[in-house]
């Protein structure tokens, strides 16, 4: 209801304002190059004595839109170059063009260094505990979004296998659904398996923002532990960026991003990507798993034989950009599918040879954005509807062991009874964001996100059971409101609140639930001096149970209709300090301390027992969990070609539930729990990354660059179960062993980045690595990547 009104209002407003604002604005664009013709990224382009200003992209292009017609002095400053000013007169409706060739300057470097920030660096300076990954720097790698996230302090991505395997991103110890995902600020909650952070290549993004613990209100969501926002940006108006890689385990990946925009602003944007892998890497088998293999096939190491994964996705947007009434108005379609074979259940003891899953996404979307619709008023509207389905197929009349040999049997299903169920979640989503600048320093904003869920399932194996299907519906609305005060380079303040309303129909038309929660928070940043920023943030955050938690997912997750909303008090305190010993030796240090106290904490556990769903996981509430910890990043650079960095994360999650729950009496035990204050099991608590990379210019030919990089991943050993229980020896107690993985990469780019060839080697030492108990990840792998990039934007 509410959203309809909002939409209507928005549409009405736009009509009124189009007629008023039409053809009055001008724009300015151009390119910045050095004297050798190299593009200058991250340069600041400002119109003097105004608030108009942008930062150039990685190819040196810039564009300033919606400028009042007038005479301007354009001021360009970039790190390592001399500043330049040029005059231009912009007439109403005119698209001005102005290119700059900047002279290099050693002495200028120091002064400009604070100003010359990329958008990613800019995000990092918010008052929130946020880390932005500059995705453009990773375009020549074969990483997906999840792989890039794994290098951020405080973040751990736990994967159960190779390409497309199940993954779990943890932010300061919160994982699974405590963390929400967004793409350009639009929640991804209901996109299905075909469009997830483990199958979206990094090239689709311009940057990835990781908000830890405290989530700004404009990401309208009920995250508990943080949020990840993938920003695709409108990088260029006319460009083609294509890459293809081939590597170990028959892995093929390709990405094509392209846009074409006419002078009049008509635009077509395309993003297509594909992943394919056999994932036939070798794993070590304990004797236990060899016993049932055919004698001649028995071996301590076998290749996975049923783990093919592939997905294909196409995102197309058609619309207009750069109009006086719309920065962009795009009609889009996301179409994708994925196919995933399942080699094992939660443990390698259960081997499958035919069980697989398919899913697809068919999602029309609408995006509208306009800054300064009225002076100071920005409006963003998004809507989409996912018509996709998910299907799990277990109809084999056979069993498999690790020898990969099909043992026929008369009964059906590798799991009990077999399965062939297709379901659609019918997810709809609409978001509206309106912000208004009250003055140079102050702004207010309102954000509303409405989502709907209505599952329909079709049992193809037992059609008669469809008659027993019960309604599974859920509507959720998150209304956010915020205020910000910002004095650039001095201090900034954010205050915000979120009101969440949830309505659901669970398993029977008569069983209607309604719940609502109010949360609020603040974020503060203060610059002690231009090099030192202190930031603190707090949020009382609420998270409603998600549809899959309440209804299950028909594959491996069981329903819990009684699940309660969880809430958490999240504190962050951080320091960012950049300093230099001299002009060539520079350091930056970021440190964050965190504190979280969550009540009715939702965690996932195995159902257990002897029932049909015993191997499924289910979500349950835990009275209290407290997290304290810190994460830290230090980075050193020598001149502009050598960069060395390291991150370290320590987080201690403690069980604050004082009494164990007795399921048979449905009451708490009176005695204090033996694991009260114990460390929560099966969560990594100490891990880090280290990396070194060197860039060499003009290798073999002018304009050709070579980058050599090395990355080390470290995760300390941790227990599978409560640390106090059992005899703590290797033989008697289960643990996830220490993980050390070395990756190296070489990137050779030619013609100023038009052609790129890169070679990556992952897990160079070929040591068995585990994120999850007994689920071995791929060993050593090599990947060769080709990328072509051309930008014709003017």
């Amino acid at each position, binding site marked *: 209801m509410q959203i309809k009104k909002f939409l209507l209002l928005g549409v009405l407003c736009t009509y009124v304002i189009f007629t008023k604002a039409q053809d009055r604005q001008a724009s300015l664009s151009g390119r910045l190059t050095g004297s050798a013709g190299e593009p200058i990224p991250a340069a600041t382009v400002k119109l003097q004595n105004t608030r108009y200003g942008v930062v150039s992209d990685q190819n040196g292009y810039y564009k300033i839109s919606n400028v009042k017609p007038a005479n301007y002095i354009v001021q360009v400053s970039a790190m390592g170059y001399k500043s330049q000013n040029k005059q231009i007169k912009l007439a109403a409706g005119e698209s001005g063009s102005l290119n700059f060739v900047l002279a290099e300057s050693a002495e200028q470097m120091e002064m400009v260094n604070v100003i010359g920030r990329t958008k990613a660096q800019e995000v990092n300076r918010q008052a929130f505990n946020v880390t932005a990954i500059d995705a453009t720097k990773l375009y020549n790698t074969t990483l997906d979004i999840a792989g890039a996230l794994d290098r951020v302090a405080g973040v751990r991505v736990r994967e159960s296998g190779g390409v497309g395997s199940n993954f779990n991103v943890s932010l300061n110890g919160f994982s699974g659904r405590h963390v929400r995902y967004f793409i350009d600020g639009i929640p991804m909650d209901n996109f299905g398996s075909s469009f997830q952070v483990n199958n979206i290549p990094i090239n689709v993004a311009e940057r990835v923002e990781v908000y830890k613990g405290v989530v700004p209100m404009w990401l309208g969501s009920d995250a508990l532990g943080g949020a990840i926002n993938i920003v695709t940006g409108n990088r260029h108006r006319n460009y083609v960026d294509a890459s293809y890689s081939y590597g170990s385990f028959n892995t093929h990946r390709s990405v094509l991003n392209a846009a074409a925009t006419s002078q009049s602003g008509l635009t077509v944007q395309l993003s297509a990507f594909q992943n394919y892998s056999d994932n036939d890497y070798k794993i070590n088998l304990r004797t236990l798993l060899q016993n049932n293999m055919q004698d001649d096939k028995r071996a301590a190491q076998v290749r996975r034989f049923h783990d093919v994964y592939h997905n294909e996705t196409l995102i197309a947007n058609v619309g207009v950009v750069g109009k006086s009434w719309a920065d962009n108005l795009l009609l889009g379609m996301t179409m994708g599918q994925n196919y995933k074979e399942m080699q094992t259940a939660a443990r390698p003891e259960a081997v499958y040879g035919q069980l697989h899953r398919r899913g697809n996404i068919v999602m029309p979307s609408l995006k509208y954005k306009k800054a300064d619709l009225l002076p100071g008023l920005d409006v963003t509207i998004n809507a989409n509807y996912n018509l996709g389905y998910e299907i799990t197929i277990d109809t084999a009349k056979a069993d498999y062991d690790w020898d990969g040999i099909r043992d026929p049997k008369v*009964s059906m299903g590798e799991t*009990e009874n077999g399965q062939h169920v297709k379901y659609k979640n019918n997810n709809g989503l609409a978001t509206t964001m309106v912000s208004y600048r009250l003055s140079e320093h102050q702004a207010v904003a309102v954000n509303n996100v409405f989502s709907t869920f209505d599952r329909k399932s079709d049992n193809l194996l037992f059609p008669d059971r469809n008659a027993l299907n019960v309604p599974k519906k859920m509507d959720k609305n998150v209304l956010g409101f915020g205020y910000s005060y910002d004095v650039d380079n001095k201090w900034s303040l954010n205050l915000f609140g979120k009101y969440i309303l949830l309505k659901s129909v669970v398993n029977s038309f008569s069983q209607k639930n309604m719940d609502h929660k109010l949360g609020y928070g603040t974020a503060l940043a203060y610059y002690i001096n231009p090099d030192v920023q202190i930031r603190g943030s707090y949020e009382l955050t609420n998270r409603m149970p998600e549809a899959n938690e309440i209804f299950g997912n028909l594959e491996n997750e069981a329903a819990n209709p009684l699940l309660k909303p969880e809430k958490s008090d999240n504190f962050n305190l951080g320091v960012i300090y950049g300093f230099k010993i001299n002009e060539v030796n520079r350091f930056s240090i970021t440190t964050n301390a965190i504190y979280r106290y969550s009540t009715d904490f939702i965690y996932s556990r195995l159902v257990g027992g002897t029932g049909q769903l015993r191997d499924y996981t289910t979500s349950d509430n835990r009275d209290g969990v407290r997290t304290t910890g810190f994460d830290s990043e230090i980075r050193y650079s020598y001149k502009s070609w050598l960069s060395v960095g390291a991150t370290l994360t320590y987080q201690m999650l403690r069980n604050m539930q004082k009494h164990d729950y007795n399921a048979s009496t449905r009451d708490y035990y009176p005695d204090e729990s*033996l*694991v*009260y204050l114990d460390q929560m099991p099966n969560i990594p608590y100490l891990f880090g990354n280290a990396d070194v990379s060197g860039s060499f210019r003009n290798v073999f030919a002018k304009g050709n660059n070579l980058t050599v990089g090395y990355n080390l991943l470290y995760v300390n050993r941790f227990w599978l*179960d409560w640390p*106090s229980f*059992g005899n703590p020896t290797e033989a008697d107690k289960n643990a996830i062993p220490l993980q050390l993985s070395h990756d190296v990469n070489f990137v050779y780019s030619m013609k100023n980045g038009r052609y790129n060839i890169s070679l990556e080697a992952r897990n160079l030492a070929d040591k068995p690595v585990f994120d999850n108990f007994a689920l071995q990840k791929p060993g050593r792998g090599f990947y060769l990547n080709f990328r072509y990039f051309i930008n014709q934007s003017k």
Partner: protein
Amino acid sequence: MKTLVTKTLLALAFAGVLSSCEKKADREVIPENPGNYIIAVTPTAIAGKADYLLTASSLESGAASIIGNGVEQDGTYRYYVTANNKLFSMLYGQGSPGAVTVYGVTDGKLNKLNDYTSATVHAFAPVGDDILTVRVPRRIAAAGTPTVYEWYRVSTATNAEVAKGTVDAIMPSGNGEIAHLSWIKQVGNKVFAPYFSIYNSFFTKFPDQAGIAVFSYPQMQYEKTIRDTRTSFIGRYFVDGLGLVENGDCYAFSSSVAADDDPATTAVDAKMTSTKPSAITRIKAGTTEFDMSYFFNFEEASNGYVITNWLNIGQNKFIANIEPKLTKGQYVTGKRLAIVDVVAKTVKAVTGFPEVKDISSVTTTNYSPKDGKTGYVGVNLASGATYVYKIDASTATATQGIKVEGGVITAIQHLQ
């Protein structure tokens, strides 16, 4: 003002960090307790977690704790069976095949002898030199697919699977419903498998029939069904309803807990439908028919109780869990104990056992040296304390024995 806010926030954050000075309550440290008794403990801390195996030198006194002691078992739900002086720790869940770990006891400590994978099973028992396991279907299979039992034979000498096969799971009931095996037992050179017939959700339309499917061994050919209409089905879900006594006679109990969907409500819920009393019947040694000359009406003899489980302690005696008829249910396990003599047809209530209101649950897999006198039964109290009780059948009394810390007792076993 701005610095004030910053400072406040700073102070708050640090206060949070420093408030981590809460202390755990003091507890007495319970050391390792080496011995030949094995107690499987399921922690109460989180549901769906693995067990710990503890050793104990005696079940009658002392203490054992999973804090700092015990061998962690992976997975969610385990069953324990001893055969050939080995303990088989069988994982029930974790995908279709489960892991089985085999232990022995040396110098009072558990040592792992071997491990192997097996299918998820619903009934298992030592048969000859094997462990026989059977996976039972719970639903009629999809169209075009037969509904079958899948059985596996594992050698207790080599700990490896030696044979497997399937048998029709509908035929034994003779009524079109699945004959869901409640348990299996070697009787002579046959395998007896009492069953409860089900059409869905463990409901039946035939509540007043008892049946035991008889299979040959080791071929596992279905031979016949022993039928009786004097009681409802024999045994219960995951409960062994057969007891073999020294002279080879086989006794069978029925709880009279057959159920069907209650037609009075729209929800799927159970309504007790059997008209027969809870009773004990007999199959004489060497025969494959119910002995119509023997009938022990348990409800009458006990003055209104049904039998829900039993522990064979030898010399025709059993320690039975009993439940008032009024509160019986498909999955209700009695919290009262009684000594049952199947030959004398007597029931004697056990005294000295904790009050029903104080009991959270009673352990299912208990131990008896089969001396006709003694049994050891685990009790998990609502207070969280957990003990093994020694039951003396001659006096029908229970005495508190070893205290177990950290969870509920899932099984009590003994190895030489």
